[in-house]
C-alpha cells in the first residue's frame, strides 16, 4: 500500500509487438509487476511516435501501424523500485526505462478504509485544540471560507475538525451576525474546532491565517482521551466544547 510522501515513478517505453518468452513484452512486464505486489501499473498505447531506430510509427498510415510505442507507468516506494529494477532491466531488450522522483498527494481506495493504525494513533495524550472564528459569508477565492479551511485541513492530514454554526454573535468586524428573515442573506458566526498535536496545529494555523481576512484563532491545551480508527472520537480537557 502506497503512503503519502515521496516515491518513485517508473516509465518504460517499449514496442507493442516486442516479444518476451513467446508472449508480448508489455503483458510480461504487467504480469511481473502484478506478482511483485506493485500498487498499480498502467500501459498506454501511443497514437504515434518514434524511438531509437528513428522510424515513424503512426496509426494514420496503415503501412506504418506496426511497432506502435507503448508506455508502462507505475509508482512505488524507492525500496520497491530498487528491488524490481534488475529484472525490468533484463526484460526490456529494446526500449527505454526512466525513473523520476515524485510526490504522492493522495492514495484513496474505495473498498478498504484506511488502516486503523494510522499516524494519528500517537495523538493520544497531550494535544492542542484550535478554534477558528469567522463569518458564514466569508469567502476564499469564491468558495465559503469554512469549507475551504476544512478541505485544507483534510489535505494536511489533520486528525479532525468540526464546523459549528452559531445563532448569534459579534466580534472582530464589530457587526452583529444574525439570521435575517431571508435564509440566503444570513451571515451567522461560524467556528471550526480542530484537534491535533501541537506541531501540526501550528503548521495548520499559519496556512489558515493566510486564507482569512478577518477573525480570531483561539488555542488551548487538551488531553485526547480516546481515538478510534486514527481519528479522535472524544476529547476531554480543561477547555473542551
Amino acid at each position, binding site marked *: 500500500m502506497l503512503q503519502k510522501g515521496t516515491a518513485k515513478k517508473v516509465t518504460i517505453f517499449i514496442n507493442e509487438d516486442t516479444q518476451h518468452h513467446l508472449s508480448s513484452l508489455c503483458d510480461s512486464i504487467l504480469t511481473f509487476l502484478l506478482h511483485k505486489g506493485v500498487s498499480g501499473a498502467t500501459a498506454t498505447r501511443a497514437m504515434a511516435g518514434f524511438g531509437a531506430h528513428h522510424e515513424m510509427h503512426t496509426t494514420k498510415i496503415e503501412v506504418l501501424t506496426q511497432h506502435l510505442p507503448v508506455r508502462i507507468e507505475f509508482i512505488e516506494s524507492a525500496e520497491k523500485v530498487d528491488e524490481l529494477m534488475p529484472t525490468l532491466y533484463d526484460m526490456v531488450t529494446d526500449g527505454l526505462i526512466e525513473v523520476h522522483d515524485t510526490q504522492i498527494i493522495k492514495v484513496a481506495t474505495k473498498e478498504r478504509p484506511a488502516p486503523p493504525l494510522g499516524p494519528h494513533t500517537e495523538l493520544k495524550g497531550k494535544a492542542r485544540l484550535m478554534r477558528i472564528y469567522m463569518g458564514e459569508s466569508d469567502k476564499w477565492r469564491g468558495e465559503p471560507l469554512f469549507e475551504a479551511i476544512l478541505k485544507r485541513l483534510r489535505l494536511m492530514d489533520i486528525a479532525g475538525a468540526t464546523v*459549528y454554526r452559531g445563532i448569534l454573535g*459579534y*466580534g472582530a468586524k464589530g457587526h452583529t451576525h444574525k439570521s435575517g428573515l431571508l435564509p440566503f442573506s444570513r451571515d451567522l458566526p461560524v467556528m471550526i474546532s480542530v484537534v491535533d498535536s501541537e506541531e501540526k496545529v501550528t503548521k495548520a494555523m499559519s496556512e489558515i491565517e493566510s486564507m482569512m481576512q478577518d477573525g*480570531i484563532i*483561539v*488555542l488551548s491545551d487538551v488531553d485526547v482521551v480516546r481515538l478510534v480508527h486514527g481519528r479522535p472520537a472524544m476529547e476531554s480537557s480543561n477547555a473542551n466544547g
Partner: protein
Amino acid sequence: MRTVKPAKLLRLHFGEGEQYRGKPLYEAIVHRCKELKIAGATVFRGLEGYGETAEIHRHHLIRKDQPIVVTIVDTEENLKRLIPEVEEMMDTGMIATSDVEYVRIENPATAAG
C-alpha cells in the same frame, strides 16, 4: 507578524427558553457584552443536553428549550468586569472559564473574490 496573546475563554451554558426582561437570555447577554465593549461573543445552539435541573433540553414542537452555549474570548480584566453582570442575569446555568492563547487576524490584503 503574528502575535499570540494569552487570554481567557468564558463559556456560559443555559437553556434556550431562559428569558431576561422579556428577551431571550442569550440576546440580552450578547447585548450586555457589546455595551461593556467585550471583544466578541458567539452563541451556539446544541442539539440536546441536560444540566443542573436534570431536565433534558431538547427541541419540542412548541417550546424552544435546546441547550445554548455562549463563548466569549477576551482578556482576564475584561472578563472580570463581565462575569458579575452575567451572573446576575442568569437564573440557572453554568459559567466556565479556561486559559487560552489567541491570534487576531487582520489581512485586508487577502481580498476575497
